[in-house]
């Protein structure tokens, strides 16, 4: 049984989406608990990809195909998880701040966080502070992730932090920030809850924040 889960993880890592979907189906029919398939198969595989990405052993296109394979597997697994009343570890909303159209980094973070079993609500680019707040409330998210690539738009991150900290969900929702011009010092200065220098670290930090 663990052999099958290992196979899922390995095929996910090399982006074999079809095979991952088949193997997940087989694991279900063999009676392996869906949570176990998720944790020890899919998320285990993405965890390894994340670590290798951080160590420059795999690169963006490889992360993309692995994430695609994970999504195929998750599609098969979802009904079984739902039937057992198993929900995601946590929920986060993510977006690129107002005035900023860059989304490559944001999309990588989203994928890495999904790879840690976190449900992601993607607000896209050019997201005003109010939209982050509304979405966090609407979806009951415990994390808000803000990305900015431009030095001229990083100030918008501060606006998001201030809006959330002064709202009725202050304290219940953590704000994570990142993007090329962002530093830990800036994070501390504006009172955000977490800064990550890369997508894999962001996913680790998110997991730590919700557990």
């Amino acid at each position, binding site marked *: 049984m663990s052999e099958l889960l290992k196979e899922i993880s390995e095929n996910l890592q090399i982006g074999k989406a079809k095979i991952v979907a088949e193997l997940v189906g087989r694991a279900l029919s063999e009676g392996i608990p869906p949570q176990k398939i998720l944790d020890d198969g899919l998320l285990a595989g993405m965890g390894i990809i994340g670590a290798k990405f951080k160590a420059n052993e795999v690169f*963006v296109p490889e992360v993309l195909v692995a994430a695609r394979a994970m999504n195929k597997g998750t599609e098969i697994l979802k009904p079984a998880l739902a039937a057992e009343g198993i929900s995601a570890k946590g929920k986060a909303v993510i977006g690129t701040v107002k005035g900023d159209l*860059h989304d*490559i980094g944001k999309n990588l973070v989203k994928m890495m966080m999904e790879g840690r079993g976190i449900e992601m609500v993607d607000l896209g680019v050019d997201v005003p502070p109010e939209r982050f707040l509304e979405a966090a409330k609407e979806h009951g998210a415990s994390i808000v992730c803000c990305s900015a690539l431009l030095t001229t*738009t990083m*100030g918008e991150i501060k606006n998001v932090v201030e809006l959330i900290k002064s709202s009725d969900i202050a304290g219940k929702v953590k704000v994570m920030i990142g993007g090329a*011009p962002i530093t830990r010092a800036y994070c501390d200065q504006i009172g955000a809850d977490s800064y990550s220098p890369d997508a894999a670290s962001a996913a680790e930090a998110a997991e730590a924040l919700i557990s």
Partner: protein
Amino acid sequence: MIIIGEKINGSIPSAAKAIAERDEAYIRELARKQSESGADYLDVNAGTPPDIERETLAWLIGLVQDEVDTPICIDSSNPETILEMIPLVKKPGMINSVSDEANKCERLFPHVASGEWKIIALTCDDRGIPAAPDRKFEIAGAIMKKADSFGIAQDRIFFDALVNTVGTTPLAQVSFTEASRRIKEAFPGVHLTSGLSNISFGMPCRKAINQCFLTLAMNSGLDSAIMDPTNSDMRAALYATQVLLALDEDCVDYLSAYRGGLFGVPKKP
């Protein structure tokens, strides 16, 4: 090729450090080296938070102008900042950039309509940075219409059809060159430029991709690039491509760049 030197940019960590420490010598050296390597314009981007962007840019512009005569390319995503910097610049250079976002064209065009300032125009708008050539072309058309209405001649506009990252967008180069070709067809007087290195983000050995992209894009009419002119690999690709596209009569530029040590290692006699 019209080369816009990209190195004085606060989003590059080493330059950011020099800017934070107000390291004059470092900035002067970046200006001088890029000029000596053939930069036609020197891009200057503060890369700081908005509250100190203007003072930082003013300091950088002052230093660069003191060190070299190469025209300056004022780089900020905030049109108000660009407007404040224009009077500080001794001779007309470039503004980097306008796009079809918000009121950027409307804000900047009236101030540069008369005169010699060149304008970098990005094919993005309030809906984002499109990957599809159709949308890139459509945005270029919208910007060109605005430029026309201010009487700005085509040859003062440098379109950057914003290449996507090939690691996430497999058609990045194909879409870029198609959009660039169509822009040039519709507006024959404009220049085509590119912030080349975005294409290789997240990939190992980025220079291999950057060099080949430069070549392919030049083959589709790219006549300008925002790049590191001090990088000898990129320069080799640039001069060699000019020769191969018959843009370098009698290989004069290639040979003089080679003799000047801009690329390649001369053979010992």
